[in-house]
């Protein structure tokens, strides 16, 4: 089996938002909609404060509350773990937005482009009228993955089969791959480093892992 996951190395992320920009370019999301974002978290109390940059997006959960909540089956989980969104089925009720513990979903009410009424080239290329009035979210660049696999490429290894955010990262903080393959880059990273998942207590089974130190898990 295949189970796609993303590993984020918090030690490496510098908060440059290149992945955010790459996602916006790759998916032409409208203003105000960010399938991928990097959140700036401050911890501690002055003067002992730390700053952590936390890249986040849809976590393609193992038990996605969004899928359970959706009344129309517009959002589904594929066998490879990717949680998909069918814009033609979605009724735009927004229930999945409230069900997602990761703020990963967005409802777009109306057509809008980055610079006024005229779309930029990438916006024109990606424009899909079905996406208005319904909910959208990160797809792990599922089309890229599927096309890459069809060409015999390996997601997470070959850029043409890998999500845009991972390809763009300047610090090599993002890794994508198959968690069910013990030799995949994500499996190796998780074996060699301590990690956590966000809101683990919610039981969503997030597939976005955050590395925070080398060595075995001892949270």
């Amino acid at each position: 089996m295949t189970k796609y996951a993303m590993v984020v190395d918090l030690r490496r992320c510098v908060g440059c938002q290149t992945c955010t920009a790459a996602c916006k370019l790759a998916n032409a999301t409208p203003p105000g909609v960010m399938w991928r974002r990097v959140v700036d978290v401050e911890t501690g109390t002055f003067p002992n404060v730390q700053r952590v940059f936390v890249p986040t997006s849809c976590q393609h959960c193992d038990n996605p509350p969004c899928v359970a909540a959706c009344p129309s089956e517009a959002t589904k989980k594929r066998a490879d773990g990717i949680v998909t969104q069918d814009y033609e089925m979605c009724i735009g009720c927004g229930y999945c937005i409230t069900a997602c513990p990761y703020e990963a979903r967005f409802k777009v009410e109306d057509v809008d482009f980055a610079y006024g009424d005229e779309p930029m080239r990438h916006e024109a290329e990606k424009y899909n009228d079905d996406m208005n009035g319904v909910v959208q979210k990160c797809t792990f660049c599922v089309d890229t993955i599927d096309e890459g696999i069809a060409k015999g490429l390996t997601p997470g290894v070959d850029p043409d089969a890998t999500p845009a955010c991972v390809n763009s990262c300047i610090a090599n903080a993002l890794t994508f791959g198959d968690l069910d393959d013990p030799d995949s880059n994500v499996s190796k990273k998780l074996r060699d480093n301590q990690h956590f998942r966000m809101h683990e207590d919610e039981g969503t089974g997030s597939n976005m892992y955050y590395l925070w130190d080398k060595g075995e898990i001892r949270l």
Partner: protein
Amino acid sequence: MKHSRKVASGPWPRLQRAWDIRAAFNFIGGGTGTGLLVMAFLGALDGRAWFIPAFAGMAFISFGLLMVLLEIGKPWRALNVFHHPQTSWMTREGVVALPLFACGGAALGLNLLGMSGIAMFFLAVTTLCALGFLYCQARILRAARGIPTWREITLTPYILLSGPTEGTSLFAAFAVWAYGGLVWVLPLAIVLIAARAAAWAYYRNGLEKRGAPEESLEVLDQMAPGFYLVGHALPVLLFIAALADAPGVPWLVSLGGLIAALAGWQAKRVLITRAARTQGIAIPRTPVRGRGQSHPGARPGWINR
């Protein structure tokens, strides 16, 4: 351009914008409508004319669903709501609404035609469906796992109690004019109002225990004094005065009933539109960079971090 939500710039919980007052109206209409149907049925058992409260109950539920229809992005695809009964409480709410409206329509129609026996049977089935509908609404909120104030398990008894309380209070206001009062309605309303206050306290306590965004708690706590004193203590006092045959009984009961119902509606409005914050970002540890070390993480904007 209108987006239902804007992207967070920080890690803090923020107000959900997916559902607005129209969604709140669905919970208001579903709860009050159910309460009115239950009371119409109990009134019928007592031999009273039940058409008006039953009709009002159906109207409340219809109004709530109409508001939902106005909220969804693709109303002409509304039938897709029936696709996922396996897990979606929204689908289940829709499924229960079908026999509710069919039997409710039959009950009202047959009642108008003077076939009161069979109409009563349909009213009983409608009332059962309405209770199922209300239960689905409570579970819809619990399944909204991104909103800590909704997913809180102790909200379920509150939602289940609030609807009948609103309906009974309105029914009391109606009954005092229509039937000159019913001996059992005011004591029942008093018990329900007291139970609703207790359910709210239980809910608030549950949030405290399991943690919630600070700003959500602030909003709920700002509402609390008025909610308890004006929304609960005052109608109970008015009803007790009415039971003690104080002057102006019909007015005391009407005022008390309306206030108790309004308090329930206000709480739902606040729950849906003002206290509904996301849980924001949480990290259990900070990363080890260079020769530094890991520090405890953070859950900004929360109590019980």
